[in-house]
């Protein structure tokens, strides 16, 4: 039998690598797929959340007497209805564990509100109208506290201290503590300051990035129900059913034997649906009322404190180079807006921003800063686009100062297999130089920009994302007619049912229509980490292929008995077991199961843990046009090169790349939260928080490069996060070439572009 983690040269396969439509496409496009908001349970009532009108305040008193007296109101909860969770209540979760206290504060404020829109109470009522009226009758007394709405404001000497008891981490003696810092991370090798001093040129960019939202189309929603024995069932739309279960169980003080999470369809997550928001509230309201409770957030709630947006940032980068364009030093200072609760990590994003380059000296310093915004949550390659926006523009500045082609500059400094990663260990197999060769040979780089009446320019930026692996589980059983049925512990946010059906079909030598793949609930599937970090495709493929091979080994033993030979003499291909040449005989998988189903179930088991990382690297090229009188930017052409290891399903991979690029372009050009001085979000709708429409997005050409990862089934790499990393820098570099000015404030709205062209300050507008 071949090793599970074989990395033989890419061999042609029957189903893996095919361009196949999603198995759930029909259900989705006809509107029949069930999301939590679609679900109705007998006797179900409506839950709504009362939110803080203050950016920062002490909660003096919450009085629900009047609300409870309203006809049709069934239950009201506040944080007093939940056990108090202390900081540093670490629960098993992903690579490092998570602090359940953070989830608790996000779900319902206790004593203090830290951002506008933070939940303070919730009501369950017979319908949404009564529930809304009841919210107004919950009387909350606040004592407002001073607030701060930006990194720049939060680090000032006189800024209000948002967490006075917190001792910031990572500030060694002699390093002055930054005000409102959560923790500091330093990655350093060599004397970067001296190297910059003696460099022939230094390219520098000081970037400011506004808060943005992941923009998933489905707002947070769930349905909770209890049975007579107190068992809680939660229908959820989250990136991980097990993560939703453990957070909810801990917040409610329930043993996990008393709660089950059933994942329904999810309308996007992008990192924002890992932390629970509504689930513990719905569950508690269901426990108190004894009735099923549905909570569906409105779009406005989602944007204004009901969910965790992506981090604003202030990033200063300096890149030194010698006269030949060899990088001598990279220095980066990364301040990340963590919102009202400290702990947003900086280490991966700052490493990612420098990862594509070899440099003798490196100094990366990252600090998360508290502000009175919603607690930041992950967004597709968290922090990657912000960091690349600064770094890739600084690299472009070096190219301009040395008058070297920006692709050539990157070639001279490109990381290669075995060169040092920022963290100081050698790179595993990477194909960056191959990618750069492909860019150089492609028409998007080779051909001149098509002429036009407005200024045009071409930009290039690289992207890197490490991704993660963690753990995934699957099991496969075989039906009485020989059809494999796979149950995964992961939810399907990216076409996982389709790609895993391809894997199972490949392993069994069957067609995709002969296998069934489903996401299990938390009581029917094995523990799997959340669908995040570009991990599900790779690690679930490992688990599913292992489970299939386990099942096939069991089936082979049965086939040997039926064929009256030894296991070693049995081969399996395309649904048929055959005995050796000495006494040729065969039995199909279907006949074998018909004959032996009642001898006992076949259960194949697969668990993948800590698979080698499938680092993602890519290069993006864009041609843009800018109207110098209005600041309007048009992206004319966009090409994304990416090493995907091996494309399980090229349509799905291209979909991931296109979706990432669109999200990146949105943040690059129009998406940014606009906070008023009082902490109010001024653009809390999808009218004024401008995500791109189909008309705003250029055709995106995807160029897939396949450098397999050793030790990973089929050599798969992560694909979904990296392509959001380069777009903003790509556009900024193109605009620099078109207009001669550097755009350092993201999003690069038309107003900001025009202000940069005119060297003018238009006064307070969007940010």
């Amino acid at each position, binding site marked *: 039998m071949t090793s599970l983690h074989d990395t033989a040269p890419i061999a042609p396969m029957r189903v893996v690598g095919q361009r196949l439509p999603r198995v759930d496409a029909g259900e989705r496009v006809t509107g029949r797929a069930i999301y939590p908001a679609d679900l109705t349970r007998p006797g179900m009532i409506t839950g709504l959340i009362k939110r803080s009108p203050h950016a920062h305040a002490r909660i003096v008193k919450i009085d629900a007497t009047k609300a409870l007296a309203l006809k049709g109101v069934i239950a009201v909860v506040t944080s007093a209805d939940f056990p108090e969770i202390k900081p540093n209540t670490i629960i098993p979760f992903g690579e490092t564990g998570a602090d359940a206290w953070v989830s608790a504060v996000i779900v319902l404020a206790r004593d203090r509100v830290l951002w506008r829109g933070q939940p303070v109470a919730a009501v369950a009522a017979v319908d949404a109208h009564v529930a809304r009226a009841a919210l107004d009758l919950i009387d909350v007394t606040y004592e407002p506290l001073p607030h701060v709405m930006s990194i720049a404001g939060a680090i000032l000497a006189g800024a209000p201290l948002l967490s006075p008891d917190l001792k910031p981490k990572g500030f060694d003696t002699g390093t002055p503590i930054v005000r409102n810092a959560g923790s500091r991370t330093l990655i350093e090798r060599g004397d970067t300051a001296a190297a910059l001093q003696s460099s022939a040129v230094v390219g520098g960019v000081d970037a400011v990035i506004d808060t943005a939202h992941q923009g998933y189309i489905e707002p947070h929603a769930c349905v909770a129900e209890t049975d007579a024995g107190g068992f809680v069932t939660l229908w959820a739309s989250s990136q991980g059913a097990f993560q939703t279960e453990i957070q909810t169980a801990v917040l409610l003080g329930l043993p996990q034997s008393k709660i089950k999470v059933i994942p329904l369809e999810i309308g996007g997550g992008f990192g924002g649906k890992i932390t629970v928001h509504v689930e513990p509230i719905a569950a508690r309201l269901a426990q108190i009322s004894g009735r099923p409770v549905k909570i569906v957030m409105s779009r406005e709630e989602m944007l204004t404190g009901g969910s965790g947006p992506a981090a604003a940032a202030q990033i200063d980068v300096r890149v030194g180079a010698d006269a030949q364009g060899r990088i001598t030093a990279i220095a980066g200072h990364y301040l990340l807006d963590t919102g009202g609760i400290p702990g947003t990590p900086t280490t991966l994003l700052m490493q990612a921003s420098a990862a594509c380059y070899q440099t003798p000296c490196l100094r990366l310093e990252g600090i998360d800063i508290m502000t009175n915004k919603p607690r930041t949550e992950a967004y597709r390659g968290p922090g990657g686009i912000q960091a690349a926006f600064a770094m890739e523009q600084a690299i472009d500045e070096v190219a301009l100062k040395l008058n070297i082609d920006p692709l050539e500059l990157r070639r001279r400094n490109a990381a290669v297999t075995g060169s040092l990663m920022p963290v100081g260990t050698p790179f595993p197999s990477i194909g960056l130089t191959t990618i750069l060769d492909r860019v150089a040979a492609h028409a998007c780089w080779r051909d001149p920009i098509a002429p036009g009446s407005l200024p045009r320019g071409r930009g290039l930026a690289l992207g890197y994302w490490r991704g993660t692996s963690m753990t995934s589980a699957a099991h496969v059983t075989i039906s009485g007619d020989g059809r494999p049925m796979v149950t995964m512990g992961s939810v399907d946010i990216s076409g996982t049912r389709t790609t895993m059906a391809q894997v199972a079909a490949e392993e069994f030598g069957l067609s995709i229509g002969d296998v069934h793949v489903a996401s299990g609930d938390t009581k029917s599937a094995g523990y799997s980490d959340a669908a995040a970090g570009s991990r599900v495709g790779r690690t679930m493929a490992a688990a599913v292929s292992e489970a299939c091979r386990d099942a096939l080994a069991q089936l082979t033993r049965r086939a040997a008995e039926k064929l009256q030979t030894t296991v070693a003499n049995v081969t399996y291909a395309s649904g048929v077991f055959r005995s050796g040449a000495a006494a040729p005989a065969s039995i199909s998988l279907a006949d074998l199961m018909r004959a032996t189903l009642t001898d006992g179930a076949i259960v194949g088991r697969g668990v993948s843990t800590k698979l080698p990382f499938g680092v993602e690297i890519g290069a993006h090229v864009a041609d843009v046009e800018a109207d110098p009188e*209005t600041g*309007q930017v048009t992206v004319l052409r966009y090409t994304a090169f990416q090493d995907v290891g091996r494309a399980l399903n090229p349509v799905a991979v291209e979909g991931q790349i296109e979706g990432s690029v669109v999200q990146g372009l949105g943040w690059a*050009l*129009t998406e940014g939260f606009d906070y008023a001085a009082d902490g109010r979000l001024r653009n809390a709708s999808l*009218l004024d928080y*401008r995500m*791109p429409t189909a008309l705003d997005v250029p055709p995106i050409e995807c160029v897939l490069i396949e450098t397999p990862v050793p030790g990973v089934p089929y050599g798969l790499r992560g694909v979904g996060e990296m392509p959001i990393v380069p777009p903003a820098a790509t556009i900024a570099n193109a605009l620099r070439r078109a207009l001669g000015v550097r755009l350092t404030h993201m999003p690069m709205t038309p107003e900001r572009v025009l202000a940069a062209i005119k060297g003018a300050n238009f006064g*307070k*507008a*969007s940010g």
Partner: protein
Amino acid sequence: MQELAYERPTTIAKAVALMARDGARALAGGSDLIPQLREGRRSASVIVDLKHIPALNDFRREPDGTWRIGAALSVAKLGAHAEFAREHAALLASARMIGSLQIQARATLAGNLCNAAPSADAVPLLIALEAIVEIISADGVLSRAGVESIATGPGQTSLVPGDLVTTVLLPPPEPRSAACYLRFTPRREMDIAIAGSGVVLRLDDKGVIANAKIFLASVAPKPMRASTAQSLLIGQKPSAALFTAAGAAAAAECRPISDTRGSADYRRELVAVLTRRALADCARQLGVMLP
């Protein structure tokens, strides 16, 4: 809890009677009203849906050349009439900036007008083209009013409770005239003008500007006439320099606010550019080579 009645009359008389009720609101396309009700920005106790009244779906030319456009006629249907599309291409183009294709399948000119948004895309040219509306009051009296008089401020109109706008009357364009509306939005659709400029330009036999009308969107509490810019143009021969000066004059006289969509300074920049470009487009339509 707010109770809301929905009525679907099939005659103007029934609609007028319903409009006399307290808290009655007419629904033409509903593309503004429904979101406003949902978000609590407007209130209503009776919604009077006009779409099922045949007379309010009228779209025809009167003997004098005036177009009669029913208050319930969707923007999408405006484009279906080839003669109208040719004669009022600029107005049609401005109406086709409203929302998106889906929105335009519901949205109406009368609704765009009565919603009284300062950013209403179809209104600057409706005013500049001297459109008139027919109004039936709660006691059944028919009156006519110039479109310019309808909006009085953001979301505010000169209509009194019970008034029902039934028809938009649009005269044919004057000879040797051209119209153009340009707006600026960061997105290409599903967006609202940060600034807009609607221009109607008429030349005399000698190629001198006999009349110029400029109405600006999103830079005042209601669509705003750029009077200084207009008078700068009238009596002059079209030229690039003249149009630039008119744009600058419009920018100077508009009264924008700063909000999340844009600063006042940026809006002025846009008004100058959009007005100049709209004037140049009119000149191009009239076959004038600009010196």
